[in-house]
């Protein structure tokens, strides 16, 4: 009898939880839709940047949060796709479909190369190897002046547009860029969610928790990791393809390992393994970088302090942490 009652309670709790989640997602969508009416051109571009970088951090969450694989080479996938898109745009024009397509292919190709090197490693070795592979890609971009512009990067990109066959939409305005970035972010979130909930994503969690058991059950660990890397590379690549159009510029810093490290920081602040946390973390870090850096050069100190506080007080990220503080539960 009591067991049945408990089961009913649990079911009810689950459905209110689901309802609250739906309400949350709907609320965020409405909020996102209202931004273009309230924000200035500059703020809209900044919001677009948050969404694009947030999408890249979201793809990193697939590796870190679900695979337990901390990468220090993630900016390479993102920045590499950004360069590929920028170079292609200068040659063939900046059609959105083409850009995103090139970004996805580049991101997956670079993830594949990285994967061949790292897929049999974990923990520290994975971290260092992704760092090394990433820096090799960075060196190539940095020194290949004729194509990438070397240290100067690439400027003077054509306007982003979307060919629909019967008409062509101009996406070069701040508002259009913001909407494009928002659609991309939502699509990426949906794809990542479907990946985590699919058998492949469950298997990825399995390798994080008990790698030995997974091999004893006949799973191919390297194959699972490679799938996660490819999915992650595809999402990072799609986001990277839009990145040059935020500031009409792409430079080698977007591929540097320090940017990879910043992505990990954003992820930890936002909440590892939550997917949505990637956007929160990106907003906080980019916000500090943009607004505090006009007062002091030491903005990284502020990011660092928030990072340390998050790790110590809210290990599951700032949203989860503040949420449980408000519910009076204290530590999660």
């Amino acid at each position, binding site marked *: 009898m009591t067991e049945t009652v408990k089961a009913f309670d649990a079911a009810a709790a689950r459905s209110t939880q689901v309802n609250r989640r739906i309400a949350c997602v709907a609320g965020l969508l409405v909020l996102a839709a209202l931004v273009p009416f309230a924000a200035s051109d500059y703020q809209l571009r900044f919001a677009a940047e948050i969404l694009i970088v947030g999408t890249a951090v979201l793809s990193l969450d697939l590796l870190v949060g679900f695979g337990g694989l901390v990468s220090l080479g993630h900016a390479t996938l993102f920045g590499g796709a950004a360069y590929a898109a920028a170079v292609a745009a200068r040659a063939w024009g900046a059609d959105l479909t083409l850009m995103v397509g090139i970004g996805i292919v580049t991101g997956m190709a670079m993830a594949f190369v990285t994967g061949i090197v790292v897929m049999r490693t974990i923990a520290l070795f994975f971290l260092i190897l992704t760092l090394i592979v990433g820096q090799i890609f960075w060196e190539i971009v940095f020194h290949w002046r004729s194509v990438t512009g070397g240290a100067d990067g690439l400027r003077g990109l054509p306007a982003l547009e979307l060919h629909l066959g019967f008409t062509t939409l101009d996406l070069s305005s701040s508002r259009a860029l913001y909407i494009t970035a928002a659609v991309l972010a939502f699509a990426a979130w949906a794809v990542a969610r*479907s*990946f985590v*909930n*699919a*058998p492949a994503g469950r298997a990825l969690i399995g390798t994080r*928790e*008990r790698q030995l058991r997974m*091999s004893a*059950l006949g799973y191919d660990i390297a194959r699972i990791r490679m799938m996660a890397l490819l999915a992650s590379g595809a999402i990072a690549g799609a986001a990277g393809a839009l990145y040059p159009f935020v500031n009409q510029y792409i430079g080698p810093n977007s591929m540097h390992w320090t940017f990879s490290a910043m992505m990990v920081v954003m992820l930890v602040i936002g909440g590892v393994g939550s997917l949505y946390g990637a956007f929160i973390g990106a907003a906080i870090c980019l916000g500090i970088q943009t607004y505090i850096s006009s007062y002091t050069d030491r903005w990284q100190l502020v990011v660092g302090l928030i990072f340390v506080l998050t790790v110590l007080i809210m290990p599951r990220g700032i949203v989860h942490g503040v949420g449980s503080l408000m519910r009076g539960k204290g530590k999660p």
Partner: protein
Amino acid sequence: MSDRPLLRIGNVGIAFGGLKVLSDVSLTLNAGEVLGLIGPNGAGKTTLFNIVTGFLRPSHGEVVFDGQDITHARTAQRVRMGIVRTFQKSMVFPDLTVLENLGLALRAGDGGYAWWGGSAVLTRAEVRARDILLRAGMYDRARRPVASLSYGEQRIVDVLISLATEPKLLLLDEPTAGLSKAEGEHLVAVIRALCPETSLILVAHDLDIVFSVCDRVAVLDLGRMIACDTPAAIRAHEGAQAAYLGKGKEAVQ
């Protein structure tokens, strides 16, 4: 029981550097048989498991399963052929629910890597997982994270994960370690009830359980097989007593 052995280990030996961990171990196991594997710590029991399941390759000798030479087969191939093991340490997936734990095992050979259109695979695995839990008497635990279960229940889930793949041969590495006598007996009963056909190789330090459930018992000592016979014969075997039981006959009875 058929005449052809399900598993035949022939003159298997392995050395790590200069240390001979197993030397010339031979063993046959018939279909449906329950074999106990005993011996003091460091005798090579877990190493033998690793060789049968493909986690290690022997330096010499052969492993034949179901008439096929599998000495150099990969673990995944052996799982597909029906050889599955458990580990000395609990190897459950603590943050996942009991259903998800079984689901991972059930999908290993059936759509476990699917990304798109995976919902049919998930549903199929969940239906089978629920059936297993029902038969194991743990249906009410289905949605609980494994970490929230008692240790005894976690050990059962640990074994159920391996049983879910419906192996022909299940190697159990100290499944009863840390359990009370009653819990240990319950675990063995669950295993027999769920898969009466499966051959078992059981490593356990609890000799009562070994002698009561096994058809035959093999004794390993310092990497050598010193006896392999019926429980009654092993009880009387002097070499086995000296090696493992050590303290004279009263330890056995």
